[in-house]
């Protein structure tokens, strides 16, 4: 009786009935590619892990050049389970980016971006960019040597853009050099600006997924397709996926705890064999391979423009793929996707095989 009363009270104020009706009706297509559906949920789960562990780290972290490194040391050595929480935060960041790439490429190859889901693709694309920005800004926060130089290099790359580059660099660094001002700025981006943007994008992204439902790949006929109820069948499988990811996360964090490194010294030379994080490796190596001068252009500038251009094309591909929009196979776009995956994988592997210099 009382349960009913509470339900009635809330359902008058919140459209609970509609939500429950929606949940009852929601189904998910079953086919041989269904496994790829779980990666979006895995990204969401990892994002929640990041929010929770991030808030926990905030309790002890101090974002100044004088004490950032020491506060991370304090977390890792003094705070109970501090080593675990920090390790999980670092590992989950990496797995989140990896899962986002997998999610994106699976969506791409299944052409799930075709009408009416272009906006879902766009918001997803921006979410990946934001996650990369999270990775870049978070990397500096322990204020260790590697992070210091990664920021030096990364902000310098932004500075290489003609005309506006200098301003962007100064804005990012909070001055001319990478200093404590940069650290506080990156901290602000990492814990306030980016989470705010993410929340909005994520809300739209997930809302659109609910509105449109899961996309079935082209060629699997809509009326013949098997469906399973979202609740509880799909959500339970989702949770199995999450617990597997959690297990992986804890395994990696316990057996390969994230290093603290050496405290940054703005007056020391960069360590030998310095490399970016794996998800920036393909850009780093590509820029290395472009010669210093190409015709009248500086190689680096050309490379950066190349990446910006390629990124914009990738973002807009759903709008060019007319065949997929008509529910026809579009081999050309599949080939583009395969090419991009191969390019990024091969160049990244090359990056790790190249000797230190």
């Amino acid at each position, binding site marked *: 009786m009382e349960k009913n009363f509470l339900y009635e009270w809330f359902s008058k104020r919140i459209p609970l009935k509609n939500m429950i009706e929606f949940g009852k009706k929601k189904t998910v297509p079953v086919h041989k590619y269904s496994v790829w559906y779980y990666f979006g949920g895995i990204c969401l789960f990892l994002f929640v892990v990041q929010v929770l562990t991030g808030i*926990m780290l905030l*309790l002890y972290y101090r974002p100044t050049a004088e004490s950032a490194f020491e506060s991370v040391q304090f977390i890792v050595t*003094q*705070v109970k*389970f501090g080593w*675990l929480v920090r390790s999980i935060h670092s590992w989950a960041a990496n797995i989140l980016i990896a899962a986002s790439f997998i999610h994106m490429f699976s969506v791409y190859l299944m052409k799930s971006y075709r009408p009416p889901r272009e906006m879902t693709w766009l918001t997803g694309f921006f979410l990946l960019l934001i996650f990369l920005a999270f990775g870049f800004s978070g990397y500096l926060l322990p204020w260790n040597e590697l992070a210091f130089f990664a920021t030096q290099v990364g902000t310098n790359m932004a500075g290489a853009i003609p005309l506006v580059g200098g301003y962007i660099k100064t804005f990012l660094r909070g001055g001319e050099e990478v200093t404590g001002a940069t650290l506080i700025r990156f901290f602000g981006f990492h814990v306030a600006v980016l989470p705010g943007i993410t929340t909005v994008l994520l809300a739209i992204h997930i809302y659109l997924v609910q509105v449109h439902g899961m996309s079935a790949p082209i060629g699997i006929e809509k009326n013949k397709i098997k469906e399973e109820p979202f609740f509880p069948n799909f959500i339970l499988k989702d949770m199995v996926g999450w*617990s597997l990811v959690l297990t992986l996360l804890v395994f990696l964090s316990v057996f390969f705890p994230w290093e603290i490194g050496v405290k940054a010294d703005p007056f020391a030379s960069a360590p030998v064999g310095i490399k970016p994080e794996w998800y920036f490796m393909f850009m780093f190596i590509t820029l290395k391979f472009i010669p210093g001068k190409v015709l009248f252009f500086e190689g680096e500038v050309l490379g950066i423009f190349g990446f910006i251009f390629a990124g914009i094309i990738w973002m807009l591909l759903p709008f060019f793929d007319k065949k997929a929009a008509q529910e026809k196979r579009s081999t050309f776009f599949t080939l583009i996707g395969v090419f991009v995956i191969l390019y990024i994988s091969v160049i990244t592997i090359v990056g790790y095989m190249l000797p230190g210099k």
Partner: protein
Amino acid sequence: MNNNKEVNIPRRSFIDYLLGGSILALIASVLYPTIKFIMPPKVPEASQSSVKAAKVGELAPNSYKIFRMGTKPGILIHTEDGKFIAMSAVCTHLGCIIQYRPDMQHVWCACHNGHFDLNGKVISGPPPLPLEVFQVNIVGDEIIVSKKG
């Protein structure tokens, strides 16, 4: 066939207990480190039992100074008749930092109007306990304050 049904129900509930139990175990194994992490570790208190609080000429008669005693503030009072008195500056009521009132010639806490005499005893107001009084020694021109006992 009826028999079969009777066997199936406990088996089903056994699985339910197993599932429920492992979900509880999972929740516990996440919550335990979380709670432990949230509670800050004890920072070893710089247990200084003796500090240089001031120089002899520094304080005029009928005035005071707050000094650091380890991690906590102490108060050094130069009384009107030239004596040096030192005690804890943390009010025993709600932990505000107390001050010496030259007009009343005793110690006063501004937060809730607590009054202490120069022996640290509560004269009036809400503080439940007296202030800890320290020992004062003058070595050369330095005033050394140390904990008693």
